[in-house]
């Protein structure tokens, strides 16, 4: 079964083409690493795949559903980690997760499980503002997986993570389909079965049939 199918998916910022039309297929359970320098279009591609941004052109299907017209159904099945942590500084780590659990139609149990899954049980009662950068990243990861999504779209999830934190990435991914942007090739090799290298705005390697222009 195909989890991600992009056909001619492209993006423009004003008159500037940020992502040339992309064709991409990812089977259920596959993990794709997106590698490349800054400004290669990795984040743009991930934001389109996560339905955070609307594409300028093309179609995107996630689990056979049109991602543009059936956003709510699609979003219930994906977890996204962007560049910003997106926490509420005045709320505790647990309160942050409980809030998002409510929005996901989940309960406190799932929030506590997600917190435990990233090793932050001891910090449950600490305000997000008081957490270290690495702990905030763990909390963001917990938010991305708390509704048990089938697809994870993670933009540089290893940012600020220590050794144990990076090790938990593999556990969180489990059997899920994932698209992961990272600068760490060793991490990509460890986590992903396929890789896409973007260099100077162009994809290297035919198997991915991906063309990206420099943002």
């Amino acid at each position, binding site marked *: 079964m195909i989890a991600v199918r992009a056909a001619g998916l492209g993006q423009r910022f004003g008159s500037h083409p940020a992502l040339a039309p992309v064709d991409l297929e990812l089977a259920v359970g596959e993990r794709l690493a997106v590698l490349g320098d800054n400004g290669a279009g990795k984040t743009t591609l991930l934001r389109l795949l996560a339905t*955070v941004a609307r594409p300028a052109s093309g179609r995107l299907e996630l689990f056979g559903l049109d991602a543009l017209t059936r956003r709510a159904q699609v979003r219930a099945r994906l977890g996204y980690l*962007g560049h910003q942590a997106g926490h509420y500084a*005045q*709320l505790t780590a647990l309160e942050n997760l409980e809030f998002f659990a409510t*929005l*996901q139609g989940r309960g406190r149990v799932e929030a506590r499980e997600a917190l435990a899954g990233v090793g932050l049980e001891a910090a449950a009662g600490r305000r997000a503002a008081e957490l270290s950068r690495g702990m905030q990243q763990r909390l963001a990861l917990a*938010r991305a997986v708390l509704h048990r999504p089938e697809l994870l779209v993670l933009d540089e999830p290893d940012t600020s993570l220590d050794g144990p934190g990076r090790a938990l990435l593999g556990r969180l991914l489990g059997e899920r389909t994932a698209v992961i942007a990272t600068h760490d090739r060793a991490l990509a090799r460890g986590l992903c079965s396929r890789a896409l290298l973007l260099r100077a705005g162009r994809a290297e390697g035919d198997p991915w049939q991906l063309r990206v222009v420099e943002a």
Partner: protein
Amino acid sequence: MAVTWAVARKDLRAEWRGREMLPALAQFVVLALVIANFAFDVDLTSGPRLGPGILWLVLVFAGLVAFGRAFAPEREQGSLEAMLLTPAGPAAIFAGKALAAALLLMAVEAVLLPGMAVFLGAPIGLQVVLAVLVATVGMAGLGCLFSALAAQTRARDLLLPVLALPLWIPFVVVGGRTVQAAMGGALVPGQPLVVLAALDILFVIVAALAARVVLDE
């Protein structure tokens, strides 16, 4: 409904712990009343006549500050994006933000109305309180809608007043007349409050519908 309450509770809890807005707005209200007192040389005779105008001016500016902060921090810290990526509807999220902003402004009004009596000698009766509270609901709906729109731009602080003030005029006109009549001791029939409530319903529905588009783009 659970989403709306969760969003509102989250905003109010964050404000209670951070105390970023309420103390500043309360201070603004008191200072504005003190300045108005000296600027208009208010006495017991002129207080009830000048009071309604001062009340609505202070309320409008306090509202611009309160609603202006409703969406900008969410966008800056990426939490709005995280909320919109959940299956929760944009309208429910918007309603929660508007509810919290409205309650915050009502807390400010709890300072403003007694302050009117103390500094301006304006009689604050039930009609005045009701007019202000009912108008706050509609103003919050529109204010939060334009706050969400303005938060997407760099000139958000300038854009919000330009967008919100023209559409708040009906609330100021109807609410102002109601308060003026009440402070003047005139009997105010129930109709102005009904008009304010009708404006509330109209603008809250329009804002909730428009919020789907504004938030999800």
